[in-house]
């Protein structure tokens, strides 16, 4: 059996968080009645002229710097010509031979192995409109209805080098990229709503080959899971084609998430003959050094820097820090909680454990999490101070999920304070020893398991409230 190497490059489109569109003043607001955020420019009316939104350039520079790119002072726009109903002008304004950013990279880390993924370029362009099909799917529809509200919304396209060799590497790259786009505050990054979209170029080649195989471009990857599944499916499909003596065809395929397959897309526009030429209605951009340096100076803390800070400032393990910083909202929650907490690792344990489990279960993000950072910190402190055992802390947490009350108040309300009163515990110890003479004999005979049994009995009697450390200590002393 021939062994194959998978080669993956990603093209990521990110909708920029501007108030107005790229080349006209229409609102970029998502949703709404179709064709209510439109004007002659984004409807492609003859004679309408585009004018460039300065904020689009600002955002593109910011992302370029965050992705370690060279910012090209001189860059220009081009027309990409093709006919498709979601494109009002029959061309898309994009950047072809002179994009704003080139030669960047992202470092990914998989199982402790660092790898650098190259970024070929970042260019500015406009989004297309949205087609709503009359039937259940594009192939069964007799007609479509076009909404141009999205037409002209600014995008940046981030093109990677074909540097990834597995679905997991592609996933790690996209996760890192998404975090950077969140931190730089240029994009909502809602894959389900389409504000962050990913296409994957996938090919395979026999081990030892020096030339890449023919690639297929996979579209419609709306989640990290879809990206991973589509790559795994596509690699198997290409292997099968080759093993059967066939050839992989260079084509665009769409990911069918429901059936877990990629399907060939044969649209009317088959020839990729875009006849790019310079957009005569927009003058070139010529960035001065001062602008670029101002954006560089204003760059926010990025995920890698934040991870280093969490490790240094709070002594978090690398694993904890890397998971917390992967989401900007999670990192902000941590920073907020840790201000009031006596134990940073304790906050991290809650976030990575019960909090993440709850969020995953509910299918919500941490920005929708009802428990305030201050209350989580208080819960951590109550455990640290020995007021709550870890088991009771979980009970209090479950109550906090129902209603965001202060844990101290809940502990009182539920009568859950840990009993650390020596007299009260001694009473329980004496009772239990009297009730279990056999266990005391076993303990004296050196059977360690006996003590565990006795501690369990005492905890049961106290309804979990006795301080386990004190119980253990006093029990041993009493039986000596």
């Amino acid at each position, binding site marked *: 059996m021939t062994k194959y190497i998978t080669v993956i490059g990603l093209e990521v489109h990110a909708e920029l968080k501007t108030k*107005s569109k790229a080349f006209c003043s229409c609102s970029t607001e998502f949703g709404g009645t179709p064709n209510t955020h439109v004007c002659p420019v984004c409807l492609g009316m003859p004679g309408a002229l585009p004018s460039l939104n300065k904020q689009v350039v600002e955002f593109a520079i910011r992302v370029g710097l965050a992705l370690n790119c060279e910012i090209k002072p001189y860059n220009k726009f081009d027309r990409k010509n*093709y006919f498709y109903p979601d494109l009002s002008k029959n061309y898309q304004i994009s950047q072809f031979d002179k994009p704003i950013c080139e030669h960047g990279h992202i470092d990914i880390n998989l199982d402790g192995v660092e790898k650098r993924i190259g970024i070929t370029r970042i260019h500015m362009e406009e989004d297309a409109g949205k087609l709503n099909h009359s039937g259940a799917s594009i192939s069964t529809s007799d007609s479509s209805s076009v*909404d141009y509200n999205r037409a002209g919304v600014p995008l940046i396209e981030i093109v990677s080098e074909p540097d990834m060799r597995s679905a997991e590497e592609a996933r790690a790259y996209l996760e890192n990229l998404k975090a950077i786009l969140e931190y730089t505050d240029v994009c909502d990054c809602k894959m389900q709503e389409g504000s962050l979209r990913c296409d994957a170029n996938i090919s395979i080649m026999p081990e030892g080959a020096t030339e890449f195989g023919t690639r297929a471009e996979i579209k419609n990857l709306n989640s990290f899971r879809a990206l991973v599944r589509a790559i795994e499916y596509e690699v198997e499909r290409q292997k099968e084609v080759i093993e059967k003596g066939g050839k992989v065809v260079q084509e665009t395929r769409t990911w069918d998430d429901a059936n877990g397959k990629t399907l060939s897309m044969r649209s009317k526009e088959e020839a990729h*003959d875009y006849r790019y030429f310079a957009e005569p209605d927009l*003058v070139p951009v010529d960035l001065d050094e001062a602008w670029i340096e101002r954006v560089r100076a204003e760059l926010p803390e990025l995920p890698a820097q934040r991870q280093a800070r969490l490790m240094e400032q709070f002594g978090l393990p690398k694993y904890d820090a890397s998971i917390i910083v992967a989401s900007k909202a999670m990192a902000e929650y941590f920073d907020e909680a840790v201000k009031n907490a006596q134990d940073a690792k304790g906050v991290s344990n809650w976030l990575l454990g019960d909090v993440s489990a709850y969020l995953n279960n509910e299918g919500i993000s941490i920005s929708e999490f009802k428990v305030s950072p201050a209350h989580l910190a208080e819960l951590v402190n109550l455990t640290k101070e020995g007021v709550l055992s870890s088991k009771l802390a979980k009970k209090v947490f479950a109550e906090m999920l129902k209603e965001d009350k202060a844990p101290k108040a809940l502990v009182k309300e539920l009568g859950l304070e840990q009993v650390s009163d020596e007299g009260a515990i001694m009473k329980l110890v004496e009772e239990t020893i009297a009730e279990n003479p056999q266990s005391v004999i076993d303990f004296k005979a050196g059977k360690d398991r006996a003590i565990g049994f006795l501690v369990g009995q005492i905890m049961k009697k106290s309804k979990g409230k006795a301080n386990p450390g004190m119980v253990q200590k006093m029990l041993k002393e009493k039986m000596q």
Partner: protein
Amino acid sequence: MKVSAEEVKHIAQLSRLTVPETEMQIFTEQFNQILSYADIMQKVDTTGIEPTPYVLPITNAFREDIAKPGVSHEAALSNAPAVENDGFKVPRVLE
């Protein structure tokens, strides 16, 4: 520079135009007439001259990021040949 009837067909297809076979020859001839005129320009020696995609020495024409209302929904759709679900109705996309 010469183009073939095949290339004219390709360009017609990209432009979503149906050119009857009977008119293909005349279009090909006209294309070539235009291109041979452009050939005169090709003879000019342009060594050492930068391409000039823009005739004006202007750069950086920006607009501030302020949203303003565009045209009304009704006005936007008033020229549409067909309207469906508040959108421009178009024939099926796939062949």
